[in-house]
């Protein structure tokens, strides 16, 4: 992999939240790269630290309640070393963020146009007229039929899909190199989902942006992502190209996720359910394989004491050695525990 095309290098990043005076890691020692013209999907269950990773990159955490270590190298700048003022030069201009819930992510009291052009107020020297033109262009680009009308409307007058388009328009207003989309389609119905994903892909092609797509929806991943990082309990457990992840998943967690995904051609099968839950921050295991408690049939000897990422070639990496002999209990023809 050429280092020049990696414009975002996340190295050994941990984010800890303060709960009752003690710090607990929400994500620990995450390493990731994102390239131009690439969609990197981060998948995992709720509570795996996906959104924390996104907000860490954006620097949206309250420094009094979080402790962040590691480096986030963005085009040669370590974002984590920046102060608020320095960060604001990147937020909105070079990094755009799309949020999960379009219903609440827009200011209810401002017209759409004002909310989009606000980004340009801080990052461009555009005149009022140029800003207006750009807003029209953006609304058109994200697939809004009547940009003039929508620009004058308030968020409550728009449908969920329209609002998400507006949020995308805000995120891409200054043509950022990196777009972080945190569950951009979760709150939308399936047809709108597909449209929004199309919009994202088009924008990426046009701007040569890199996109971090955070989602728990494997269908969305299969449709859009070039590369996939699977996250569990604050760690990356497997990383590879979309093909590698979908066609030859290795880590038990990845395989469990894929098995629990409904498939059209296998209607009569019961869906696979992963036992247990993602541990809460305070109960997060700090040693051993964090996923091991949810695959109790796997003997302890299969796991590494301190699971490391193992390179399987072609950029495919997996954490822990337990993947080698991993089988689901029903497929071994064995015990259901």
């Amino acid at each position, binding site marked *: 992999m050429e280092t020049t095309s990696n414009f975002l290098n996340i190295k050994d990043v941990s984010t800890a939240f303060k709960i009752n005076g003690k710090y607990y890691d929400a994500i620990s020692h995450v390493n990731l790269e994102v390239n131009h013209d690439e969609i990197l999907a981060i998948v995992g269950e709720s509570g795996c630290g996906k959104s924390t990773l996104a907000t860490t990159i954006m620097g949206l955490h309250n420094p009094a309640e979080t402790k962040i270590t590691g480096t986030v190298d963005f085009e040669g700048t370590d974002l984590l070393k920046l102060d608020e003022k320095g960060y604001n030069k990147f937020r909105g201009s070079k990094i755009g963020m799309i949020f999960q819930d379009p219903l609440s992510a*827009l200011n209810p009291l401002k017209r759409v146009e004002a909310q989009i052009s606000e980004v340009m107020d801080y990052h461009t020297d555009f005149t009022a007229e140029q800003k207006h033109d750009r807003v029209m262009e953006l609304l058109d680009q994200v697939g809004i039929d009547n940009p003039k009308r929508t620009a004058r409307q*308030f968020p409550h007058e728009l449908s969920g899909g329209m609002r998400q388009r507006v949020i995308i328009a805000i995120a891409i207003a200054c043509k950022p190199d990196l777009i972080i989309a945190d569950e951009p389609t979760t709150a939308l119905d399936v047809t709108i989902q597909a449209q929004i994903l199309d919009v994202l892909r088009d924008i990426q092609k046009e701007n040569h942006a890199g996109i971090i797509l955070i989602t728990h929806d494997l269908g969305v991943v299969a449709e859009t992502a070039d590369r996939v990082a699977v996250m569990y309990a604050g760690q990356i457990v497997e990383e590879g190209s979309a093909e590698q992840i979908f066609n030859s998943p290795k880590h038990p967690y990845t395989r469990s996720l894929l098995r629990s995904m409904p498939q059209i051609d296998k209607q009569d099968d019961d869906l696979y359910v992963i036992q247990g839950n993602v541990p809460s921050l305070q109960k997060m295991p700090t040693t051993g394989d964090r996923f091991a408690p949810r695959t109790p049939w796997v003997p302890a000897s299969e796991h590494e004491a301190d699971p490391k990422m193992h390179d399987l070639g072609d950029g495919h990496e997996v954490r822990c050695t337990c993947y080698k002999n991993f089988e689901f209990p029903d497929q071994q023809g064995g015990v259901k525990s």
Partner: protein
Amino acid sequence: MWKTVLRRIMIMIPEVIILSLLVFLLAKAMPGDPFTGSINPKADPAQLHHLMEMNGLYDPWYQQYWNWVVHLFHGNLGNSYQYQEPVARLISSRAVNTLWLALFTTVLTYCFALPMGMYAAKHEGKLPDTIIRFYTYITYSIPFFVILVIGIWIFGYVLGWFPTTGSISSTANPGISSAGSRLYHILLPGIMGALFGTVNVVQYLRSEVIDAKRSDYVRTARSKGVPEADVYKHHIFRNSLLPIAAFAGYSITGLLNGSIFTETIFSYPGMGLLFINSINYRDYTVITALVLIYGILNLLGTLLSDIILSIVDPRIRIE
């Protein structure tokens, strides 16, 4: 926008009718009559009977109500039994005093409350926030009239900085000196009222700002690269002031109601003091008129709140 206002006013009409009916019937239900106390106790009961009949007090209640309403529309609220002058004139001379006091108190309340609430919320959990919250809890837990009495005692009596009664000094000449004297007389009741009224607004605003701080749209604003000061100015404060603006209408009516305490304790000749005196003297015409006016003012207050809200909040406008 005006459609919302119009619709809101339409809703108010039945409210006013019901209010007037209630006021009238309550006044009717009160014991005693307006004449027994004012005529010679040895007078012939027939004479009293005659007086009652002359004044239409034996008519059926709906007849009396109708007469009352017709007179109301002519601006005739009857004569005060106590002062022997038209109630309308009596009240309007007092209303001016109450209005000035209420206005002054409102302005002061918001001057105190807005910066306090915002500052407390912005520095949530820090020392200034703790001090402001301590102040609001203490003030909130003490009855209003106790605060007033303490205020009079300290600033009016012990320190002697302010007059403790009246609305104007008897020696004041017309013109600048009389205006100054009026202002001087409303300073202490105004400040005391504001210190008390501040509490609600501060608490309300503080929790609104804290909610807004954590809201998704503020996170969106931050992710746009908007500097923190502007995030507060354009998003957090603006949005949390909205319910406060709406609250203003109610708070004005709250002040009018509170004026009953303030004016009684400060012997300030406004509507509140008139109200208490009229009750003591069973001055029914004045009482009914005042209850009706207070009632209508309350309705107007809520109307004002709704209108303000429809101006500042696009979500509740009817297109």
